[in-house]
């Protein structure tokens, strides 16, 4: 793992991996969107509104996956002091927040026709909103820590681990508590969703995962470039 402690090695990898993921993600995600809107059938109960699932569910999973990645990066930061861990956390925060926001917005738009309400304060919706706020807080905290300089990246890392408590809460909220949101359709090895819906949903999930990964890699490159530029400016100022 410490092979990538050298940013140059990471950058060489990111240089070709980021555009590859971006292309793959754009192709798969847009294909799945078109499939979901024009090809996939309407649901017996929900009718046409089911089509929002191809955007809602991948963004929900990736919103939760993003914080899981932040928690792992935070652990790596705290224990191994890996130089890229804090950068990865910062790179994930913004796309994570955007995906959580898309999940909340699409869910709300679906809730109006299906449930008869835009929003309710049940366990699932509330914990997902908390996740969105956690992302914003992490981004603000990491940015403040960066401006404070060396050694302060531990505070966002601790926050990243503490915030991970919310991830199982989101997942189990529909099982522990009575909620308006339905329980998961897809659990380990089985699905209560007909294949006509499931296949485009999985394609969409792979596509959006590629897009998420591409954005994170691009943001990590940008943050590293930023740091290099700052270091160079500092050296110039010292020399002058």
């Amino acid at each position, binding site marked *: 793992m410490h092979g990538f402690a050298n940013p140059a090695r990471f950058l060489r990898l990111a240089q070709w991996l980021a555009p590859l993921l971006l292309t793959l993600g754009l192709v798969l995600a847009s294909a799945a969107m078109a499939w979901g809107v024009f090809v996939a*059938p*309407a*649901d*017996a*109960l*929900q*009718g046409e509104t*089911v089509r929002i*699932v191809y955007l809602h569910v991948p963004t929900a999973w990736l919103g939760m996956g993003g914080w899981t990645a932040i928690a792992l990066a935070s*652990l790596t930061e*705290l*224990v*191994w002091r890996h130089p890229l861990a804090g950068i990865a956390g910062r790179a994930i925060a913004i796309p994570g927040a955007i995906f959580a926001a898309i999940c909340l917005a699409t869910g709300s738009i679906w809730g109006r*026709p*299906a*449930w*008869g*309400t835009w929003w*309710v*304060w*049940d*366990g699932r919706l509330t914990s997902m909103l908390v996740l969105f706020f956690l992302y914003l807080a992490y981004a603000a905290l990491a940015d403040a820590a960066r401006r404070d300089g060396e050694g302060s990246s531990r505070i966002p890392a601790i926050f990243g*681990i*503490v915030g991970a*408590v919310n991830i199982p*809460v989101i997942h189990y*909220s529909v099982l*522990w*508590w*009575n*909620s*308006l949101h*339905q*329980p*998961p*359709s897809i659990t380990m090895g*089985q*699905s*209560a*969703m*007909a*294949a*006509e*819906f*499931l296949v485009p949903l999985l394609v969409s999930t792979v596509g959006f995962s590629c897009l998420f990964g591409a954005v994170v890699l691009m943001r990590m490159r940008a943050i590293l470039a930023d740091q290099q530029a700052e270091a160079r400016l500092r050296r110039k100022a010292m020399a002058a």
Partner: protein
Amino acid sequence: MSAIKAKHQRLILVLIALVALIGAALLAIYALRNQASYFYLPADIAAKPPEPGRAIRLGGMVEGGSLRTDADGVTIHFIVGDGKNRVPVTFKGIVPDLFKEGSGVVAEGKMSPDKTFVADNLLAKHDEKYVPREMKDMTEAQARAAVKETR
């Protein structure tokens, strides 16, 4: 202290913190287990009847064959059940699209003294099953079998 040792020390500290954190979270969730539910099931109403007039939410399945509409066309009566207990519900207004017999519902309102639930808002609860419209004309059992086959 060597570098390896410091690394292990940090790992142990983080693991202890994680155990404490998970313990705290479990305690909090345990304390919330009743408060965080979005609605009462008919069983909860039977076990601990809420005082009439207090605003609560009742959730469960709309019993098949229980739905009837009054002569005014907007007042409906139905029974919400959870398999064991049943609560009769009255509602006046427009129901959501997904509201129908045999599917889930969350009713907001209050218990009246005569043990019926007077709802002033209905929310339809969708279940985890997704079935294409083409299968709609099958019976529910057939549709479920078809879904199972595609797994």
